[in-house]
């Protein structure tokens, strides 16, 4: 579904990514790992259109998406979350998700002011879809809580719900369980499975939480200093000498 072919990107004199190749199959739960500064977020930014690669290309469902602007890539069916959560603090959880759906409605201002039938129908549909997404992530009891009043773990879930409301085929999660405890990250793992099993989506995620990654992901790509140093299933990666060296080396 997603093909990263020989992607390279240079900032000024710094080579951030070099000859990166990665393939994510449809329905896969794929993890992208590597030490800090290895270029993971840079790669995600290239895939989602925030950076244009200086060499190579990115293909989604056979179409080239590298170089396109982020909102078009979003329309193509690729969604992502960010490391810092950016919800609307004063809006409720439900309103936050409905907002995301609203971008896909097509009533006009007159409809809205005079509350015509198409307006009401689309509003109701948006609301229903939003509620179902919130149920999906387990926030059905917090529909009307203001986003700023939700605890951190639930805010992360809300962000995922908001992303799902745009109905992406491929979901990119940037450190979804950062700062979470055991219980919360298990919950997220469960939801990721549900996204694939029930929702039919493909997931690519970046994480540092090793236990989470090894248990959840079916395929891993390891980056170090902008290059892919290993690719394979978790068992292979865990026993790969180079991977161990680059992590252990950093820790010393």
């Amino acid at each position, binding site marked *: 579904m997603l093909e990263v072919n020989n992607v390279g990107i240079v900032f000024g004199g710094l080579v951030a990514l070099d000859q990166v190749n990665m393939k994510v199959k449809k329905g896969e739960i794929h993890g992208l790992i590597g030490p800090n500064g290895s270029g993971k977020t840079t790669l995600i930014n290239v895939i*989602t259109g925030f950076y244009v690669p200086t060499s190579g290309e990115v293909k989604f469902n056979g179409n080239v998406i590298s170089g396109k602007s982020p*909102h078009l890539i979003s329309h193509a069916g690729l969604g992502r979350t960010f490391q810092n959560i950016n919800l609307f603090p004063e809006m409720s959880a439900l309103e936050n998700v409905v907002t995301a759906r609203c*971008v896909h*409605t097509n009533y006009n201002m007159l409809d809205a002011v005079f509350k015509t039938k198409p307006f009401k129908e689309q509003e109701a549909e948006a609301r229903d879809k939003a509620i179902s997404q919130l149920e999906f992530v387990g926030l059905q009891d917090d529909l009307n809580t203001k986003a700023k009043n939700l605890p951190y773990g639930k*805010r992360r879930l809300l962000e995922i719900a908001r992303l799902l409301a745009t109905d992406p085929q491929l979901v990119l999660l940037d450190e979804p369980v950062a700062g979470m405890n055991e219980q919360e990250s298990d919950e997220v793992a469960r939801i990721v499975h549900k996204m694939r099993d029930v929702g039919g989506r493909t997931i690519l995620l970046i994480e540092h939480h090793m236990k989470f990654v090894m248990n959840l992901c079916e395929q891993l790509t390891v980056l170090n200093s902008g290059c892919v140093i290993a690719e394979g299933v978790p068992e292979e990666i865990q026993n790969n000498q180079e991977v161990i060296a680059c992590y252990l080396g950093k820790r010393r």
Partner: protein
Amino acid sequence: MGLFILQIVNGLVIGMLYGLAALGFSMIFKALGYMNFAHADTIMIGAIVYYLLITALNMPFYLAFFLALILTMGYGVFTEKILFVRFRRTSPITFMLVAMSLSTVVKNVTLLLFGPLPHGLSMNYTDAYFMVGGMKISLNNFVILGIALLILLILQLFFTKTKFGLSIRMAQDDPDTASVMGVNVLSTRAATFGISAGLGCVAGMLMGPMFSISTELGTQISLKSFISAVIGGLGNFVGSVCGGLIVGVVESLGATYVSSGYKDVIVYIAGIIVLGFFPYGIFRRVATKH
């Protein structure tokens, strides 16, 4: 007593116009985090285009109003597409310098084309008036207030009830998240500049006939509208309008009861005092991101 009422009315009218200009300025700040010091030019351009359409092309004023508005909004979009978009990843200081340079060029080109002489444009929407305590208060004032409020209402509906309005707000809040949600941030930027220019244009068209149409029009109110935006809370829309009203009334009452020669100084001092108590503006609390 009549004098007091008259001055309050005057203050509100001019304050509303400061507020419209301040709103345009605030909008760009909210969307981009930058201060657009070329904003005041839209006031001058709006007033001059309006004047030319009416006098040179003999257009009826309501037609000229809309045409001037569309042209000025086009100018706003044009400056974004040609100039400002290239500086979207630079520091606020760089942007300010670019905006100030643009402003200098635009003002001087206008000076070359239009000439330095001020021109009068008489716009009496109605001859009706009422008397309060020996002072004549023209209903024109209320027509101006009415037009301004109508524009604000339309803007409010646009932002809350349309998809594009919503997209603009999302992009103003967080352009990256918005683009990931499918919002075309470049379009919303252009729209933001267009609307901001439109607000400046309306302020200019309503203000020009009260005074005189010249290349100095924008400069005169630019500082006061900047203060209005700041004391109301930069980026807060209700704040900008209220800030404008406050500045207008303070200016008017200050001139009447303290000193008419130094009314500008009174406004600036009042602004400093307000900021002493509300460093981020009256309507804005410190922004927090979680």
